[in-house]
């Protein structure tokens, strides 16, 4: 606790001068406080989430989370297992609709459009918000068909030439083109784990989304494949908003601009990544990133 006060003080003062110097008593009290620390809001956001609650049956999995996602940023969501970060991520493109007994309340807007609005169709919404999953899950089809599937079902292309172009472009953006250009007709499932995950990223960006949600995209990969994906994330930030859920704090620190820390369904702290990692303001964040639990 003492160390918190010592290390946290200067950061707290410099980052948000109005905040009080934490005494041991208040830092303990902060364990109980579940108001979000830091400013979760940004100017001109891509997506706004206000007072989002998620219930699985009677159990509340996400409690009153409000956060903005900026344009062209990578925002990392970290937190111990079961803290609800993946659940929250899946709210953003309404993947939770597919979960039996899952109920989402609150207001989530993509460019001002309420995604839970009665008139909003979930199919184009998911085309606008791509998703990459924890385990690489290419379709058991050829590499080409994996990437071409999205544009085909959404009718984005008129002919084969356009489709070829999109496939090539997506694979290039995903940094996979050079490795697979000779074997586009081979099954996507025959690639290595890291290549499969990049194929999944290529598949997601083939439908020109505005955001990409990544649910622990590197947890099944070795460090070299992870490094490639992280490089790719940095490049993709030029065009997309990326929300990445990760268990690796080093990864969050490397790839993200902002970091959000979740704890038992609460959004505890949001801030610039550098600040959150060097200077956490909430006791729980501090405990987590210093490895006291999690």
């Amino acid at each position, binding site marked *: 606790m003492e160390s918190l006060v010592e290390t946290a003080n200067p950061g707290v003062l410099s980052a948000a001068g109005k905040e009080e110097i934490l005494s041991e008593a208040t830092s303990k009290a902060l364990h109980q406080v579940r108001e979000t620390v830091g400013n979760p809001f940004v100017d001109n956001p891509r997506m706004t989430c206000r007072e989002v609650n998620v219930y699985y049956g009677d159990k509340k999995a996400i409690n009153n989370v409000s956060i903005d996602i900026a344009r062209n940023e990578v925002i990392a969501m970290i937190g111990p297992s079961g803290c609800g970060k993946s659940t929250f991520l899946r709210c953003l493109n309404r*993947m939770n609709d*597919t979960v039996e007994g899952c109920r989402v309340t609150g207001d989530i807007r993509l460019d001002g459009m309420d995604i839970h609005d009665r008139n909003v169709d979930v199919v184009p919404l998911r085309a606008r918000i791509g998703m990459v999953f924890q385990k690489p*899950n290419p379709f*058991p089809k050829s590499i080409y068909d994996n990437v071409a599937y999205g544009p085909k079902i959404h009718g984005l292309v008129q002919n084969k030439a356009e489709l070829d172009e999109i496939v090539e472009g997506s694979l290039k953006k995903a940094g996979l083109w050079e490795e697979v250009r000779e074997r586009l007709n081979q099954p996507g*499932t025959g690639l290595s784990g890291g290549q499969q995950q990049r194929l999944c990223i290529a598949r997601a960006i*083939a439908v020109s989304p505005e955001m990409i949600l990544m649910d622990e995209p590197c947890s099944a990969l070795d460090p070299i494949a992870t490094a490639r994906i992280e490089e790719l994330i940095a490049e993709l930030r030029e065009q997309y908003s990326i929300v990445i859920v990760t268990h690796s704090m080093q990864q969050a620190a490397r790839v993200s601009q902002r970091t959000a820390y979740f704890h038992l369904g609460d959004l505890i702290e949001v801030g610039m990544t550098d600040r959150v990692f060097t200077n956490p303001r909430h006791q729980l964040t501090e405990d987590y990133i210093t490895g006291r639990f999690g």
Partner: protein
Amino acid sequence: MKQPTTNPAIDKVNRGLRRRYRAERRFRICGATAIITALCFLFLLFFSIVANGYKAFQKTYIQIDVFFDPAEFANENLATANFPGLVKTSMSSLFPEVNSRGDKKELFYLVSPGASFQLMQLVKNNPNLIGQQQSVWVAANDDVDMLLKGHIDRTRPETERRVSDKQLAWLDALAADGKIKKTFNTTFFTSGDSREPELAGIWGATCGSFYTLLITLSLSFPIGVAAAVYLEEFAPKNRWTDIIEVNINNLAAVPSIVYGLLGLAVFINFFGMPRSTPVVGGLVLTLMTLPIIIIASRASLKSVPPSIREAALGIGASKMQMVAHHVLPLALPGMLTGTIIGMAHALGETAPLLMVGMVAFIVDIPHGFTDPATVLPVQIYLWSDSPERAFVEKTSAAIMVLLIFLFLMNAAAVYLRKRFEIKW
């Protein structure tokens, strides 16, 4: 091996070790015994069927010289011609010394009653035969067939066998002349049922089985797959779908004869469909195989990894697209396997078909879904009930044919699964 150690725990482990290995050995011996027993019974089954039936694939023929007397064909209508008379005349000419009425009857008994139909067929195909002498191989009577195949013991007293001493003498004379031969029994594969074993065949029953299974397959596969897809992918999970699931599982366990009673009550008595027909039999078997197909299809849908569904939904496929493009192709091999196993079930089913009248004695080959027909297992059942010795080997032969069909269907199931299985 076992050295005393200073570690008491290891000593204890070592003491128990022998017992553990012994238990393992016992278990393996039990397993091997079970397998060997099962294989023995299987071998016994096949051996008894083949040993009983393989001779049915041969048939005895007797050569007679027929003079197609123009006097017999005065009438235009061939059917009115006295073909049995021609056969009798030919037989008499073989043994001119036979004079008494009783002896003649015994002599004529050597050839099958089907011989006259055979002659009629010959004349129909070639009217120029009238007025000519022609040597014809006609089917021997089933008792002659049985005798030549060794099923009738010549050494027994005459009163205890179905072939008399005189007949034996004639047959030996014919055999010495080379006028008796055994060839492959094509009749068995090309004709329908008959009261005469030497004329009975399985083609009628095979056609009946084919039409019945065609109805069953074309109804139960689409309905079963659609039901499984709906229940697994689209239906909400609530009390009602739970009840439906339990009831489908119950239906799979309902005795098949109950489906026959249902078919009799609903399809025949209520809807007035024609009895003894493949259409009714097929509908009954559809009801019977539906639960099997639904259960197998649901299991194979369940085995499609959820990650594929998420991947499809995640890039904006609609639920229908997710199912049609990704889930169904992956689940199809399992569904096909389940369907073929259900079909094999249906092919071997007898009891429900008895109820809808497919047990009738039907000589004609069915040519459609509404022709009266019987099916292979029912044909086997009918033959096994017949008193003639010759039907015993016919029964076994028909069982062999049925088993071959079942093997083929199971092989097709294995092939389809291997062929369309998608690996990752």
